[in-house]
């Protein structure tokens, strides 16, 4: 295929990718957008397969790779549970990172094929781009592996911190810089692999101090990195499609990280330095303050009775709902209440769940229509005229202390104004604090009724009471 034709195909693919993202501005257009993305990818792969210099053996190799990878990807994507989505995305990010490492290695060992010089004599500028693509790819890989392990519960979600951690990371970062500079100067193969190894180590060390509930930021950030890695490789091999797509993905991940940080009122630096939430055990132990008003606990029957007679109910789901797999039974509860003429809405905090938009997907999976689900800014004014706020699996994002208590760790975080509802039902296993290690003031408010127990079990009991 001629160079012009393949460049044109790459341009068409880039436009289709932009349209794929554009489609996500509304659920109605999103499915078409996704199809555009698939077509774009198909065009890109076909155009590359017809690239001049492709030999038969190579085409067989490529098709074998596509078939193996495609089968694995399809099977995994079909089987995965929606609650496990965050770890799946993290795992996928790691693959992009690793692919970037291998493409960089291929470009290093066969520079002629990419027109960046001859073996041992690669252009200096290409070496810079190559080492950046390599380093970012390797950091994306090992960082995503840790994020995956934390999200999937294969390792503790608690932050792992030790003395001098940040100094160690800084030192390794500087060492990486030195390695890259000497690699660019010499083009030495040993230095290439040392950059890879050091970047793997750095990716690992950067993510271990970050706690489980900060994973939405980490997953978004690694999403961004995978884009920058692709762009870096695009610069190395002079491919426009890689550069454009890498920039799109990089920008997308960066925006999502920003939105998540704003949702917690924390800076990205603060999240990345980690250690947040490690003091939760201590704070929980001191929870039984004597001068606190007593907590009111209720039964599912009481809740069912009050909700049946309500006019407007706002449900606030959180990660706890996903852990308990309570979304189906929650929707059943909503259906029964709707039959009683109750107006039901769902309120989603930006950082609810373990990845951006996770709660929306879980509710959609449980057949909750998306026009009953609202974002924080849309729904907050409505709590004042709601009869019931039903908090299931959320905690910190409902804590009024974020608005009033300047000493609180979560002060300034935007929260859902559940305390303005006439009655608040709060499903919780026990009195322990949330992720931020802060006690929730809401529990002690006179209009709050605690429903102690597992989210799914309590909701089931409410459903049974409603059916009677």
């Amino acid at each position, binding site marked *: 295929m001629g160079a012009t034709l393949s460049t044109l195909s790459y341009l068409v693919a880039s436009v289709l990718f932009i349209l794929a993202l554009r489609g996500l501005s509304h659920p109605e257009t999103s499915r078409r957008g*996704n199809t555009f993305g698939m077509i774009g990818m198909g065009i890109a792969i076909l155009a590359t397969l017809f690239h001049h210099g492709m030999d038969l053996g190579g085409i067989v190799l490529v098709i074998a790779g596509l078939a193996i990878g495609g089968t694995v990807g399809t099977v995994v994507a079909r089987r995965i549970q929606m609650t496990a989505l965050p770890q799946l995305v993290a795992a996928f990010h790691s693959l992009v990172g690793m692919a970037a490492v291998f493409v960089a290695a291929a470009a290093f060992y066969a520079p002629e*094929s990419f027109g960046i010089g001859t073996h041992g004599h690669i252009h200096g500028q290409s070496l810079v781009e190559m080492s950046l693509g390599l380093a970012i790819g390797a950091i994306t890989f090992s960082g995503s592996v840790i994020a995956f392990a934390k999200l999937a519960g294969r390792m503790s979600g608690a932050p792992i911190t030790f003395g001098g951690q940040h100094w160690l990371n800084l030192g390794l970062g500087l060492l990486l810089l030195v390695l890259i500079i000497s690699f660019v100067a010499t083009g030495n193969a040993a230095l290439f692999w040392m950059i890879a190894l050091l970047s793997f180590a750095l990716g690992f060390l950067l993510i271990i101090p970050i706690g489980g509930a900060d994973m939405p930021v980490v997953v978004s950030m690694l999403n961004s990195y995978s884009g920058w890695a692709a762009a870096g490789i695009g*610069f190395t091999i002079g491919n426009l499609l890689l550069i454009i797509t890498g920039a799109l993905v990089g920008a997308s991940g960066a925006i999502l990280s920003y939105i998540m940080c704003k949702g917690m009122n924390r800076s990205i630096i603060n999240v990345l330095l980690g250690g947040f939430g490690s003091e939760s055990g201590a704070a929980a132990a001191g929870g039984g303050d004597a001068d606190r008003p007593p907590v009111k606990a209720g039964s599912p029957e009481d809740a069912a009775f009050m909700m049946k007679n309500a006019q407007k109910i706002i449900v606030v789901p959180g990660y706890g709902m996903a852990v308990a797999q309570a979304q189906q039974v929650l929707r059943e509860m909503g259906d029964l209440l709707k039959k009683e003429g109750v107006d039901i809405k769902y309120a989603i905090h930006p950082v609810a769940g373990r990845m951006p938009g996770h709660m*929306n997907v879980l509710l959609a999976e449980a057949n909750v229509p998306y026009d009953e689900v609202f974002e924080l800014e849309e729904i907050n004014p409505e709590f004042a005229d709601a009869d019931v706020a039903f908090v299931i699996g959320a905690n910190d994002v409902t804590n009024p202390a974020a608005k009033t208590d300047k000493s609180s760790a979560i002060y300034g975080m935007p929260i859902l104004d559940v305390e303005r509802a006439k009655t608040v039902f709060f499903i919780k296993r026990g009195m322990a604090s949330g992720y931020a290690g802060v006690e929730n003031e809401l529990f002690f408010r006179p209009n709050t009724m605690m429903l102690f127990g597992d989210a799914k079990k309590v909701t089931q009991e409410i459903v049974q009471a409603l059916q009677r």
Partner: protein
Amino acid sequence: MNATELANQAQATAQRALELAAQARAAAEAVAPVAAAAEPFLYLLTIFLLACFVGYHVVWNVTPALHSPLMGVTNAISSVIVVGAILAAGTADGAAARIFGFIAVTLASVNIFGGFMVTRRMLAMFKKKGS
């Protein structure tokens, strides 16, 4: 301010503009050889920066409810790195580069198929009231 003064000022301004233009030209001529050498890179960089802006504006338009599918799609399209992998597997000299290319094609394909498929599954679940 009378007419003569105004004319004098205008003349001075015109003179200054001419000088600046000459300076700009000299600067451009001085930079030209450097720019010619760096041209392919500058061209790529221009496209990269413009694509960042496009990404920025398109992504801010994505509704928060679809942020998970957004991650799914960006995940799938970032595996466009498969293009580099295919070139390595199919055209490179030397077994090492081909094997690296093959591994990269396989890894990226998991992502392409998995990413688009899981996004499709997610999006299929988003339904309106009554549908």
